[in-house]
């Protein structure tokens, strides 16, 4: 299944608006901004570029790229913050206009994008004329044609007057708008304008920009989009619970309400994998372009929803694995053709439920990893002696690439060799309570899988007792319960039968995640019941295996 970009349009617009709002708020403060704020601005520009590229909006990506370059120059001290601010606001205004055109279902570029990108590029090359919009309030009695002409003539010393609106006189105040093409910086203009004839006050801004007001804006950081229906359901559940307090009903009814309230609150924290998938697609495409590889990035399970915090945390390691796949896995079109493969390589991201866990897999159809090469590297790096390396299984050898400093690359690649290594990926995944699994076949590709426990979730289960204590299985995994002539019960799953001492019954339990070492033993979670007893939720897949 290839990615249907139109499905992501709303998401693209929403996220772009968020980045733009945050970036414009920061850009207004750029002259006084510290390094952290500049770095944050850079990230916003980078994200805008990546999202636009992923959606195929080349012009939007181009302007965002130019803004990114400008911020990079600021970051490296090659550009003054105060001088860069107007250009940056200019670019952000262009981007905002283009995103709003996309939101209206129109093509993003109405011809202004070229100008936006060019101004930024030229700004980086050196000061070139640009258009400033100047709104003047003139002194009393200076609204006549002669006075205005004198002002425009004086402005001619600063640049070329492109156009001037007819002055308006209202309540004794004369206002005049002028568009001036000038290479002068805003600071130069601000210093010069008070000395021009007849000027009482003025406001200067780059033209064609929806310039932000001076009011401080709230940055979008930390703000989550919540579906209105989910918020309504949460409020309704909370209200039901409040009303329940005044009614003498059973504890079971109250528990159901609390469980519903929790389910609705949990709902608010979930977002579809698609909300970050477009960034991965963009990163993969960019890596492919940089390396001259033809790569198709395929997303499966994009509708599956995870906690936003988990999506954010997993994004960086995921990006690294995808870049790695493109850089070290996918071969050049020529190599692929001679190996009998399609010219275009494929990197497939698949998100799926795996028992009580969520599994995210990145699979490429590239050159894979050669255990022999890895063994040689292990010996070369002093990780293992010759004899030890020879005794290692292919799985053990493959796991070596998650060791700090281990690499079989002869040199850092232009895409992935500069970033975090697989050891950092593993640490990040384990820090989230997850596990990292690897598999590869020479010439056929590499398979990297992250497995995470889901957060706390209510789910229907069948509770039972064995000699080992109280346990549960997901209700959907039990096809039937058999009772023999002696009253002994057996739970029948698709491929396995589980004899039990007692079937306690169906129950909705609130399952809490467990650490990887416990999950590896076949326990996918645990729940505390009303009487304080702990029930272990068994993983049906582990029972089968």
């Amino acid at each position, binding site marked *: 299944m290839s990615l249907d970009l139109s499905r992501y349009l709303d998401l693209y617009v929403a996220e772009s608006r968020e980045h733009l709002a945050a970036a414009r708020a920061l850009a207004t403060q750029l002259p006084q901004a510290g390094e952290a704020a500049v770095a944050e601005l850079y990230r916003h520009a980078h994200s805008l570029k990546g999202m636009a590229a992923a959606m195929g909006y080349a012009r939007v990506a181009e302007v965002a790229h130019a803004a990114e370059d400008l911020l990079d120059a600021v970051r490296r001290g090659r550009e003054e913050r105060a001088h860069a601010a107007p250009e940056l606001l200019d670019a952000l205004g262009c981007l905002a206009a283009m995103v709003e055109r996309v939101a209206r279902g129109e093509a993003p570029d109405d011809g202004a994008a070229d100008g936006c990108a060019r101004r930024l590029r030229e700004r980086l090359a050196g000061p070139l004329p640009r258009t400033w919009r100047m709104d003047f309030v003139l002194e009393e009695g200076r609204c006549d044609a002669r006075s205005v002409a004198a002002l425009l003539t004086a402005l001619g010393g600063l640049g070329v007057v492109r156009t001037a609106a007819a002055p308006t006189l209202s309540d004794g105040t004369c206002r005049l708008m002028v568009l001036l093409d000038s290479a002068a910086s805003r600071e130069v203009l601000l210093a010069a304008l008070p000395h021009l004839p007849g000027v009482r006050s003025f406001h200067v801004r780059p033209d064609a920009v929806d310039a932000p007001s001076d009011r401080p804006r709230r940055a979008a950081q930390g703000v989550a989009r919540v579906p209105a229906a989910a918020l309504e359901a949460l409020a309704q559940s909370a209200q039901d619970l409040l009303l329940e307090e005044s009614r003498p009903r059973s504890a079971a009814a109250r528990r159901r309400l609390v469980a519903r309230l929790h389910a609705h609150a949990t709902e608010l924290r979930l977002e579809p994998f698609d909300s970050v998938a477009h960034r991965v697609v963009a990163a993969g495409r960019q890596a492919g372009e940089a390396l001259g590889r033809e790569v198709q990035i395929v997303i499966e399970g994009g509708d599956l929803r995870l906690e936003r915090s988990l999506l954010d945390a997993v994004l960086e390691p995921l990006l690294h694995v995808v870049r790695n796949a493109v850089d070290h896995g996918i071969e050049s079109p020529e190599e692929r053709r001679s190996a009998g493969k399609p010219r275009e390589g494929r990197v497939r991201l698949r998100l799926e439920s795996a028992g009580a866990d969520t599994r995210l897999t990145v699979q490429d159809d590239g050159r894979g990893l050669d255990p022999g090469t890895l063994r040689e590297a292990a010996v070369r790096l002093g990780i293992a002696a010759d004899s030890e390396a020879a005794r290692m299984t292919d799985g053990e050898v493959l796991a070596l690439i998650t060791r700090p400093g281990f690499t079989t690359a002869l040199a850092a690649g232009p895409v992935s060799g500069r970033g975090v290594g697989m050891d950092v990926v593993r640490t990040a995944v384990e820090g989230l309570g997850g596990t990292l699994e690897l598999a590869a076949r020479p010439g056929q590709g590499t398979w990297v899988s992250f497995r995470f426990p889901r957060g706390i979730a209510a789910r229907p289960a069948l509770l039972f007792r064995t000699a080992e204590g109280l346990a549960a299985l997901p209700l959907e995994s039990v096809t039937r319960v058999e009772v023999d002539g002696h009253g002994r019960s057996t739970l029948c799953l698709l491929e396995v039968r589980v004899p039990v001492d007692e079937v306690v019954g169906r129950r909705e339990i609130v399952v809490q995640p*467990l650490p990887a070492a416990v999950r590896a033993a076949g326990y996918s979670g645990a729940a505390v019941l009303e009487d304080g007893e702990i029930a272990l939720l068994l993983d049906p897949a582990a029972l089968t295996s």
Partner: protein
Amino acid sequence: MPTPERLLAVRLARQRWALRLVDLAGVCEMPALRALPRVAHPVLGLAHRHGRIVTVLDLPALLRDDPGEGPESLLLLASPRTHFGLRVRGDLRLTLPDAGGDEDGPLLRVDLPALLA
């Protein structure tokens, strides 16, 4: 002047150990454990504290020491996503890094994140 880092000193059979208070979410009496068949030592089992399930590990085993004297306690670790507790039998007391230990013997610092990694 920065506040000195406070420590929880634990006396086990062979050694005094110190855990940073910032790594701990609390200390409580040892609750009943739900055993975990097929899960290897030092995982002892599961307990729950105010409805939150905690995976309990054996601190002396992690430190290659033996239990000390006194009642068992559960040290709850501060961790945002995974919930661990450490079972410990031994004398517990709050201390400071430079509180000395001539009478009680040296105090060894425990790097809990590294220990659990």
